[in-house]
């Protein structure tokens, strides 16, 4: 079981990822923006954070920068997921700061692999 935090502004994507991951036995929390994500992270850091960089208001990259500065990412594996085709367009602070990348649309298998590969890595 992996504790996953999903950060995406699309209600449907949050519901979808929650459903896909929960039926694999993972525990999922979901945030719609950077502030909500920060609150949840401070309350209890997840093992994996699935983060859409294109968030309304404060961007995902901004959030990553702050989390890194505050040392909150040390035990969190970050997987970016984005509708951006080109990971370079995510900026240097984007991909470089992440442990994985999942482009939309993704399949259930790809989503699960991105979460479980990460949790295995962290354990090893």
């Amino acid at each position, binding site marked *: 079981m992996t504790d996953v935090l999903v950060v995406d502004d699309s209600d449907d994507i949050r519901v979808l990822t929650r*459903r896909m991951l929960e039926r694999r036995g993972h525990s999922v929390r979901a945030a719609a923006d950077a502030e909500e994500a920060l609150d949840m992270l401070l309350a209890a850091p997840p093992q994996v954070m699935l983060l859409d960089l294109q968030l309304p208001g404060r961007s995902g990259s901004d959030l990553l920068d702050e989390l890194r500065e505050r040392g909150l990412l040390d035990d969190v594996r970050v997987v970016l997921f984005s*509708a951006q085709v080109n990971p*370079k367009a995510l900026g240097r602070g984007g991909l470089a700061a992440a442990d994985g990348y999942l482009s939309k*649309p993704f399949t259930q298998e790809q989503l699960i692999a991105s979460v479980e590969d990460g949790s295995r890595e962290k354990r090893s």
Partner: protein
Amino acid sequence: MRTVSGDPREGLVPVADLTAVIESSSDAILRQDATGAVVVWNRAAQRLLGRPAEAMRGTTLSAALAGPAAAIWAEALEHVRAGARREGLRLDIRQRGGLVVPASVTVSPAHAPDGRTDGAWVVARDLSEQVLAQRTLAESEQRVHQSELLAGTGSFVVDRDAGAMQWSAGMYAIARLDPLDVEPSVDAYLDLVHPDDRAGVAAAFATALAGDAPPDRDHRLVRADGSPGWVFLALAPSRGPAGVRGVTGVCQDVTERKAVEAAKEDFLSTVSHELRTPLTAVLGFASLLHADAPDLDEFVDPIVRNARHMHEMVERLLDYSRLEAGRVTVEPREIEFGPVLDASLERMGAALEGRKLDVAVEPGLLVRADPDALERILVNLVGNALKYGPPEAAVAVQARRGGGAATVSVADRGPGIAAEHHTAVFERYFRVPGRAVATGTGVGLAIVRQYVELHGGHAWVESIPGDGATFFFTLPDGPADGEHP
């Protein structure tokens, strides 16, 4: 003029011959007496003055001149009376019918048998054709200039031996340069090229000077006023009897087109990104529905199939726009090949239905690639193989490692491609001649080549016409990627 004698042995021209020469001359020749009245003339003189023979005798040249010509003529005759000669007078002659003919006139003193000056010999050449030719040339140059300004084009020639360059007026307009401010040369041109594009443009000039035609190109420009722009540049070697003489080139200002292209690319890019999120939801929930309610597959399958088709169209749209804008980028990292191939085949969905695929991939094969780019490469190559191969024949996909690179091949049993097209098939919009017009954007293999080359690899095709085609590409092992530990 030598005195005319009847004896050819003295080396002088017989009078009869001289008369024939005068008569047949295309220049008007006439003799006028001291009063200016015409007393002797040839046929060309009749033509020039527009008078029949019976109206020639006694007429005067002065009467056929108007405006400044009359004054010039009067002054010339003063000189002749003083024994001098006047050459190349540019006079407009008004013919009897009113037509004005430009002429070049030479007038010399004529002498009476006793040696005193008695009138003048006049030789006049009709300049109508010459003037017309000059005017036509000037008008033609003016038209070229106007066309260049309207089309935003310019042209130039480089003389290799002289090291000199000539620019048309359009070139100065494109560069926003005053012709007085620059000495045209290849270096002066390169100075206008954006520093990042300069090496490529310099290489193109070198290629053309060496006698080969370099590929046409768009390059950035920094105009004389500092403003940025884009030009299309086409160069070709020009040849003389002794080989390459220099370079001929054409430029076109494509700044506006580039701005439109960039806007189009941004638009296509935004639209396709915006489409990806809803597609994720549609495909994702459909897959959950498939898992939870298999009895609904009759309805779920078409949803999935169509959503995948839409996804493929979105990707094609992006391929097209990225290629057009020359903005294809990759972020290679070490990944396993198998899953990317599986994802590519899954994406192709309906196109694979009823088709055979022989896959031979080295188990656990790792490649250094951008997974999205690799997927585009595979989708395009397998899609091509399916399109051109007969439905009953299998498409073979192989991947193996060796020599510091992974080599991937996709083979079909289609009509094959003649050797002369093996390079061109990787150019955008290229179609093998003689085939029915294929569906698609015509950019698939161009995208493949660009993606492969961005990975430091090489793409090529091997084919025997009539016996199928095999497309290959390599993905070289790179240094360990420090960005993704």
